[in-house]
């Protein structure tokens, strides 16, 4: 097996992607406001997973045609961590999953955040977009990279998600000022002091990604964004998940979800 292959020239990583489904026992479920942190036993997935990749999860109990894409929140030993925000019927059901239940999970899928040869990293997350950044922080921390994270939430209830994270240098903003600084996470960027060799990683709402893109361009920083799109197959077959990039319309599930920030076309 060759789990990792870098295609020369396109600036981001294409690790192994695996479509087969594993039936995984839920070993942990902790609630943080509207968020649930799940841990499922998935050694075949955690072995291969790289920060930024995602899994396709079947909503248990039937009644849903499509699987839901979820970022890999953590991969510690044989435990695959998922962080679910209840936003609609499918994610509500997933957020309510209990210990001992089984989940059908396929992955890891998609591209990864390039984590090699970094010295300093700034992780910018908005809402549920913070999820993939914990796995990245774990991987970077293990190699001695200095990691700073700035997370933005709507309000105190959403900010309870921070309880699920374990990042030493973590700044939090809320739009209503109830937790951390008041404002948007991107307002914080100007105040964060990072060395010029810093690489920026972001995931969150489109407006946040656009603001981070403008900021990194002004500061001359290298950056990567993880994008969201509604998906049907998750495995490159249907072309349902395309987003506009400077390289044309690309599939979030296959060429993404991680793209170099300067390739992202923001509307």
């Amino acid at each position: 097996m060759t789990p990792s292959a870098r295609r020369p020239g396109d600036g981001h990583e294409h690790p192994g992607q695996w479509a087969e489904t594993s039936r995984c026992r839920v070993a942990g479920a902790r609630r943080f406001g509207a968020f649930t942190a799940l841990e499922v036993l998935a050694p075949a997935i955690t072995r291969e997973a790289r920060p930024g990749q995602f899994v396709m999860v079947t909503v248990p109990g039937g009644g849903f045609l499509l699987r839901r894409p979820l970022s890999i929140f953590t991969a510690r030993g044989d435990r695959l961590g998922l962080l679910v925000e209840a936003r609609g019927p499918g994610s509500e059901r997933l957020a309510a999953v209990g210990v001992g239940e089984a989940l059908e999970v396929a992955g890891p899928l998609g591209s990864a955040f390039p984590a090699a040869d970094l010295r300093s990293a700034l992780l910018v997350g908005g809402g549920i977009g913070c999820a993939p950044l914990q796995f990245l922080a774990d991987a970077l921390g293990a190699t001695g990279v200095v990691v700073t994270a700035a997370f933005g939430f709507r309000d105190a209830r959403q900010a309870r998600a921070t309880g699920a994270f374990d990042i030493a240098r973590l700044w939090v903003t809320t739009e209503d000022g109830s937790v951390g600084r008041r404002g948007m996470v991107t307002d914080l960027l100007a105040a964060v002091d990072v060395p010029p060799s810093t690489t920026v990683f972001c995931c969150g709402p489109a407006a946040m990604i656009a603001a981070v893109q403008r900021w990194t361009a002004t500061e001359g920083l290298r950056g990567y964004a993880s994008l969201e799109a509604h998906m049907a197959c998750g495995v490159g077959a249907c072309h349902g998940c395309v987003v506009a990039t400077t390289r044309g319309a690309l599939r979030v599930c296959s060429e993404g979800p991680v793209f170099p920030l300067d390739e992202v076309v923001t509307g």
Partner: protein
Amino acid sequence: MTGVDGVDLRVDLGSLTLEHPLVDASGTFDLLENARRFRGDYFAAFPYAAYVPKTVTSGPREGNPPPRVTETACGMINAIGLENPGVEAFVSSLPALRPLRQPVIVSVGGNAPEDFAAVVRHLEEALDSSPGPPHVAGYELNVSCPNVRGGLSIGVDPGATAAVTTAVRALTSRLVLVKLTPNVTDVRPVARAAVQAGADGLSLVNTLRGMVLDPATLRPFLGNRTGGLCGPAIKPVALRMVAEVAEELPGVPLVGMGGVTSGRDALEFIACGATAVAVGAANFSGLEAPRRILEELRRECAARGFARVGDARGLALARAG
């Protein structure tokens, strides 16, 4: 002998014998993408009796602006817009399918008879100069895509459908299927026109035109505004149309589809007169779905005492006379 293993699943789709009735529905399954994400030999594990790739057009097409898909009650809607790299790129991808044992049925799209003819002519020439594998056994003419401008204008019109079929028939001796749209008041005149123009069989149904709103803005959600509905929500419509065509044109092989997610669903299409059954959106529920549906079909047949899957064919149809 109708033990689970004893059920004879083979079917004849016109001149083409399939090892079982299940094929993939165009646009919902990509053999090469699956093979890339599969730990074993995916060609050996390929679950379908024939491979129907995504619709190919004469030139490359970019498709519709996003968003392009979302789930709906008991189904999903899509407006991909026939994104594909064009027939030339398709032909150069054929060698990658060499290890495939099963036949390939190429789905062809276009806005006019000349477009369909251009694709088929290109393929026929390529296949003459390097005859398989893979075994390209025939074509499925997609005259029924609701998501491209003019995509439906052929499939709702018997004369235009006949013109496309005639143009392709003149170019090939391979199997020609015409894929029909459910977006008509009566599917039978279009079906008849396709068969009279030389189609060997018919596939039905393509997706039903629909619209989904963004609940926050009350504006159309899809980039294309409208899209095609499929999945379990459309199965009753699809069964009714397959039965109508089977009663109207007895003996014409049909590929039934629309909302198949289980072996029982597949058997129902066969009972409505289908010879083969295509699985579409159910592919999105996981790589393992087609194998599961096939095993369920085998068990359904055995449990009902059918020695051959063909024994179920037409059971739902009105008796002649």
